[in-house]
């Protein structure tokens, strides 16, 4: 018995150590390798030079990535939250609910390159949007939709049913309950789901390769124009060979930093809100 419990504890500790070690090593390695080329110039200037990224910086890639992410989050979050609301509060059929869950799981299971291909053929070619932030945003939006929906649905389900009934009990409509109690009460969870979905979209390369991300572009001014993106820039830098590997690490550094800072801000916000409202 003692031996079994020792093995289980050992397994737990080794597992925890491995996971923590991998994370620390991954971040540490990239920050160590990429930190060398981080400078004010790198962060604020456009790429220049004969070879991509040889001189200058990655500023249009940063602003482009933010534009792709914002578009994706708006396109993905609105239907995701609406779907979650409908499933939890309006759907009276268990069967329909199950069907919707299967559909959402299927969307989550679609490889991102296939989403890119779909957006390319439908939006870029058939609907003639062209390669632009909107086309990529739609592909990325579909990709993050299940991610946000699952989190939103969980948040809505965790809200005490009696609180919603307390709104109905005052003679208010369901829609009023959704807008004034459910959404504000779940604001922290929804916000964190959206930001994490945004981080997921920011790191995805495949859906934007054919649809809106390009190697060279100025800062985005319209969602109907293409833009640079950090993950594609990173991919192109690595593809160029060892000469631009240092800058590739610098780009990865920036991406990781943006994602880490976003995650940290969301966690702090969610905790503060929780503390403000819960005893």
């Amino acid at each position, binding site marked *: 018995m003692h031996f079994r419990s020792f093995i289980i504890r050992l397994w737990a500790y080794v597992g925890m150590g491995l996971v923590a070690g991998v994370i620390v090593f991954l971040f540490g390695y990239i920050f160590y390798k990429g930190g060398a080329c981080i400078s004010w110039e790198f962060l604020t200037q456009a790429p220049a030079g004969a070879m991509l990224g040889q001189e200058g910086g990655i500023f249009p890639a940063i602003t482009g990535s933010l534009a792709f992410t914002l578009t994706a989050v708006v396109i993905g979050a609105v239907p995701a939250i609406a779907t979650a609301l409908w499933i939890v509060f309006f759907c009276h059929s268990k069967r329909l609910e199950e069907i919707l869950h299967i559909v959402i799981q299927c969307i989550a299971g679609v490889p991102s390159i296939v989403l890119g291909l779909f957006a390319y053929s439908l939006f870029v070619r058939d609907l003639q949007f062209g390669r632009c932030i909107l086309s990529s945003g739609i592909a990325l939006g579909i990709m993050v939709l299940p991610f946000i929906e699952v989190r939103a649905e969980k948040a809505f389900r965790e809200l005490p049913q009696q*609180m919603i009934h307390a709104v109905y009990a005052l003679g208010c409509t369901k829609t*009023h309950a959704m807008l004034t109690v459910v959404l504000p009460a779940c604001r922290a969870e929804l916000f964190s789901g959206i930001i994490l979905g945004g981080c997921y979209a920011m790191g995805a390369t495949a859906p934007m390769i054919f649809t809106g991300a390009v190697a060279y572009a100025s800062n985005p001014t319209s969602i109907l124009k293409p833009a640079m993106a950090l993950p594609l820039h990173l991919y192109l830098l690595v593809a160029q060979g060892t000469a631009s590997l240092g800058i590739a690490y610098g780009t990865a550094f920036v991406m990781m930093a943006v994602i880490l800072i976003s995650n940290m801000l969301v966690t702090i916000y969610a905790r503060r809100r929780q503390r403000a409202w819960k005893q």
Partner: protein
Amino acid sequence: METIMDVRNLTVSYEGKAALKDVTVSFPKNEITAIIGPSGCGKTTFLQSLNGLITEISGVRCSGEIQLEGQSIDGISKEVLRKRVGIVFQTPMPFPFSVYKNLTYAPKYYGIHKKSELDRIVEEKLRMVGLYEEIQNDLHKSALKFSGGQQQRICIARALTVEPEVILLDEPCSALDVQSTAVIEKTLLELKKRYSLIIVTHNIAQAKRLSDRVVFLKDGRIVETAKTSEFFAEPKEKESQEFLGGMFG
């Protein structure tokens, strides 16, 4: 006896399983009626049927008739019915906003936006539940920061803001300590001057202290309905005698 609500042959079933069977009873105006009975006898289902909240639960079927002041509730919209028949739940359930926002939530929904009028409603309703003096300086504090008893009184005050005719209370003191329970009971006795109250309670002593009439439910049907004094002094039915004698419940 002037009645406010009349229930005729009400049967409610959850996914084919009957929770209430052929219930017929009348609730007098400006009195407190206590619904008592052992766990799982259908007390909460009964209460939720009276203001149509039961329809929010999937798989529920209802038959029979419920009248509010002589009018069938089938002819009243869900929203209007719930405005006229308010409910307070077992667990204090304030919205995660300030006390002020909790109490102005419904008035604003019904089109009152004038600050002075909203202030008046907040003060009046908090006074009615005996809470104004206690928390008048904390009206903009989160309602979740108050004690359980205070939260429950905030919920009662919130239910009063829509000027209901009937207030349903689903074991409102079961999550509270003795002191808070005493304060709430005092509040309810005050409220019956203006409203008709129907309270579900597990606590026989509370039913005895508070109510004017008692409805004893068991296995989804009414065993006995009587004036409180008569019910506790001389229960007519054998099952009532056994319940009061502590043989089940």
